[in-house]
C-alpha cells in the first residue's frame, strides 16, 4: 500500500503537465537580429509559421518578422510580447545577425544576454549584414527551403567547406574569440540582392527565376571602434587556409594567359614556431585538378609539379594578403596574437599592452607550404 501511494505520487509529479505549452502557442524563433538605434536596442525576430506548401504553392508566408525596442536587449525582446500572444522558443534558432551598431562597446551587453539565456543553444551561427537593414534580411524568403533561416545557415556552412571564401562561426566560437586574447571574430556578411518587396513576397516562390535572394557578400571584421574591415575574396581564402576551415575549396591560378583550378582534398596550414619576431607558417595542401585550361600537356609529370608550385604561390599569396590586411587595419582577425598567447605567452605583455596596435605589426613571417596534386579527375591527361 505504501509503495502504491508513493507510486501514485510520482506518477502525478512526472506527467510533465505543469505549465505546459501547446505547439501552436509557441513562437519558434528561427533567426534574430540585434542592432542599436537612437540609444535603444532593436530586436528583430524571424518566427516560423507552421504552414504546408500545397498544390497551389505556399498559401501564406512561412515566417513572420517582428521587432521590439528597449534600453537593454532583454527589454527589447520582452517588448515584443506586446505585439504577439506567442511564447518565444529560442532553442532552434539558426542564426543571429549582429549589426555593426552593436559591435563596439555594446557587444558585451549583447553577449551577456545571449550567454545568460538558459534556453539558447551554443550552436547557432553569428552573421552580420553591413549593407542592409537586418530586418530586411530576415524578411526575405527562400526558394530552396520553406524556412529561410535554415537556407541561410546551410548556405554559410556549405560555401565555407565547398568554396572557401565564406566562414561559419557558431556562437560558441564567437564567444571564445571575443573572450580570448589576441583575436577578433570574423563574420560572414550576408546581403539581400534585389528588392525587399519581391524577396518577401510569396508569389516569387512560384517562379523559377528570381533576382531577389540572400547571398554571402564577403567576410568582415570590426575594429575596436566598430569600423568595418572588408575582407575580400582573396583574403577570405587566405583566412580560411590559415585557420583550416577549408575542406573542398577551389583555388584558381593562372598559367600564362590561361587558368586552371584545383580542388583541395586536405589542407592543414598553421603557425609553426616563433623565432625572434618571425613566425613560420607551415602546412600541406593536397588537391586534385578540377579544371585545366593551360597549354602544357598534363600527361607530363613536370606539368603537375609546375601546377603544384603555381597553386602553392597562389595560396601563399592569399595568406600574405590576409596578413597585410590585418596589419593595415590593426585588427588581428586571424588570431596570430592568440597563437602567440597560447604558445609563447611571455613574448608579449598581454595585461598592459594592446596587441593589435603594439604587437601585431612587429611580427614577420616565413612560408613553408607544400602542395601536392593527387588526382586529375576523369581524364588521364587533357583534351
Amino acid at each position, binding site marked *: 500500500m*505504501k*509503495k502504491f501511494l508513493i507510486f501514485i505520487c510520482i506518477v502525478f*509529479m512526472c506527467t510533465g503537465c505543469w505549465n505546459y505549452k501547446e505547439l501552436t502557442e509557441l513562437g519558434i524563433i528561427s533567426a534574430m537580429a540585434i542592432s542599436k538605434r537612437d540609444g535603444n536596442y532593436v530586436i528583430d525576430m524571424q518566427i516560423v509559421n507552421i504552414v504546408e506548401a500545397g498544390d497551389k504553392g505556399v498559401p501564406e508566408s512561412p515566417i513572420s518578422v517582428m521587432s521590439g525596442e528597449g534600453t537593454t536587449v532583454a527589454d527589447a525582446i520582452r517588448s515584443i510580447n506586446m505585439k504577439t500572444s506567442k511564447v518565444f522558443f529560442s*532553442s532552434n534558432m539558426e542564426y543571429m545577425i549582429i549589426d555593426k551598431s552593436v559591435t563596439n562597446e555594446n557587444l558585451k551587453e549583447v553577449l551577456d544576454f545571449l550567454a545568460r539565456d*538558459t*534556453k539558447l543553444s551554443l*550552436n547557432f551561427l553569428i552573421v552580420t549584414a553591413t549593407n542592409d537593414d537586418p530586418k530586411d534580411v530576415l524578411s526575405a524568403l527562400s526558394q530552396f527551403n520553406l524556412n529561410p533561416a535554415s537556407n541561410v545557415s546551410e548556405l554559410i556552412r556549405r560555401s565555407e567547406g565547398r568554396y572557401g571564401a565564406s566562414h561559419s562561426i557558431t556562437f*560558441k566560437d564567437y564567444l*571564445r574569440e571575443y573572450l580570448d586574447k589576441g583575436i577578433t571574430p570574423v563574420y560572414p556578411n550576408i546581403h539581400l540582392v534585389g528588392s525587399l518587396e519581391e524577396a518577401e513576397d510569396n508569389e516569387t516562390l512560384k517562379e523559377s527565376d528570381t533576382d531577389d535572394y540572400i547571398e554571402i557578400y564577403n567576410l568582415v571584421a570590426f575594429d575596436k571602434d566598430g569600423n568595418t574591415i572588408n575582407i575580400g575574396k582573396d583574403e577570405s581564402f587566405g583566412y580560411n587556409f590559415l585557420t583550416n576551415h577549408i575542406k573542398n575549396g577551389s583555388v584558381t591560378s593562372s598559367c600564362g594567359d590561361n587558368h586552371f583550378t584545383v580542388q583541395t582534398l586536405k589542407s592543414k596550414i598553421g603557425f609553426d614556431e616563433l623565432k625572434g619576431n618571425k613566425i613560420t607558417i607551415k602546412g600541406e595542401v593536397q588537391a586534385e585538378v578540377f579544371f585545366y585550361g593551360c597549354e602544357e600537356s598534363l600527361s607530363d609529370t613536370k606539368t603537375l609539379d609546375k601546377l603544384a608550385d603555381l597553386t602553392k604561390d597562389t595560396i601563399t599569396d592569399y595568406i600574405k594578403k590576409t596578413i597585410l590586411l590585418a596589419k593595415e587595419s590593426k585588427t588581428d582577425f586571424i588570431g596570430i596574437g592568440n597563437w602567440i598567447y597560447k*604558445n609563447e605567452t611571455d613574448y608579449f605583455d598581454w595585461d598592459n599592452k594592446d596587441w593589435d596596435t603594439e604587437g601585431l605589426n612587429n611580427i614577420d613571417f616565413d612560408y613553408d607550404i607544400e602542395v601536392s596534386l593527387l588526382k586529375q579527375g576523369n581524364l588521364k591527361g587533357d583534351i
Partner: protein
Amino acid sequence: MNRYKISSLTFSLIFMCMLNSSLLGIIFPYILHESKTSFYISLGISFVVGLFLIFIYLRIFNFMPDKDIFKKIEAIFPKWISKCVSFILMMLVFLLTIIIIWRLVTFISSEFLVETPNLFIGLLIAAPLLYASTTDFDVIGRLATFCLAVAFLLLVFNVVSLFSQVDMNNLKPLLNFDLMHTGKSVLVFTFIVLVPAFLTLVIPKDNVTNSNKVTRSILSIYTLEMISIFLIFFIIVSVLGINIANIYTFPSYAVLKTLSVLSFIQNTENISILVWVLLMTFAGSFCLLFLKSGLKSLFNFDKKKTQLSSLLFIFLPFLGIVLFMLPYEIYLNKFQYVIVPWAINVSIFVILVLIFVIGKIIFKIKKITV
C-alpha cells in the same frame, strides 16, 4: 539494520557514487576558475593527495570491522560523549545533504524547469529520496550499480559525441598555474570530492562479503573515477575553451549544449545531464540513510520510530532548501559555494580522524586488541 550483506564491488560502487556528489556546480566551476588550463596539474596532485585520504579511510574502515561508525563511537567514548560526537557528526552530514540537494535543485530550477515553482521541484526530488530512505544499504547498493551503469553509458555517449569538437589549442597555455591557486584547488578538490565517500563508513566491514578485496576495489574505483573526472575536464576545456568554461555556473551542462551528433541529434543536453541528477540524488539518499542509522544509534529507536524520524529528517532539509536557500542562489557566489561545503567536509574528516586516533589510543591504553 546490520543484517544485510553487500559485495566488495557493490560497496566500491557506492563509494564511487559518493565521489560524484559535489562535482556539478561546485568542483567543476571552482577548479576551472582556480587552475584554468592547468587543471591537469591540480588533478594529478589531487589524485596523490587523495590516495593519502583513502589510506586514512581504509584504516578507519578496518578498525573494529564488526561496527559501523556510530557503534565505533559508542565503543570508544563514554555514553554521553559518544552521543554528542554522533550528534555533531550527524549535524554535519545533515548540512552536507542540504548542500548536495540544494545544488541539485538550483541546477534543475535554473536550467531545466525555469518556470516551475521551487516547491514543486523540491517535492519531485523528495519522492525518490523518500523511497530510498525507507530501504537498507543492500538496496542502495543495487541503486548505485544502476546509477553508475547509466552514468557510464551517458559519459561514453557524451564523450564520443563531443570528441569531434575537441580543439587541442584550447588547452593552451599548458603551464598556466601558480602554487597558490594550485594548492587551493587541490585542497578543495580532495576534501569536497573524497569526504562524502567517507560516509560509507556507516557500513561495517563485516557486512561486506569478500571484504579482503575492498582495498583493491576502492583503489581501482578511485583511479577510474579520477580518469573520468580528468576526461570530463578535458572535454569541457578543449571544446568550450577555458574562458567560456569559466563564465558558466554549470560548465559541464554548457558543454553539452554544443552536442550535435551527425548534425541531426541536437538539443539533447537535458538527457545527457541526467547522469548528475542521478548521482546527486543517490548521494542525497545515501546521506539520509547515514542519518537514519545515526538516529537509530543515538536514540535506540525501533524500526517504526526510525522510519518516522527518517521521514522527519527528509523534510527538514527540503523545507530548508526550498523555502530558505533556493531563492538566495545568486548571493552564494563562486567563493561562498565552495567555502561552505569545504568547511563541512573538512569538519567531517577531522571528526572521523579524531575518532580513529582516540579509539586507537584508548584501546592501546586498555591493551585491547581489535
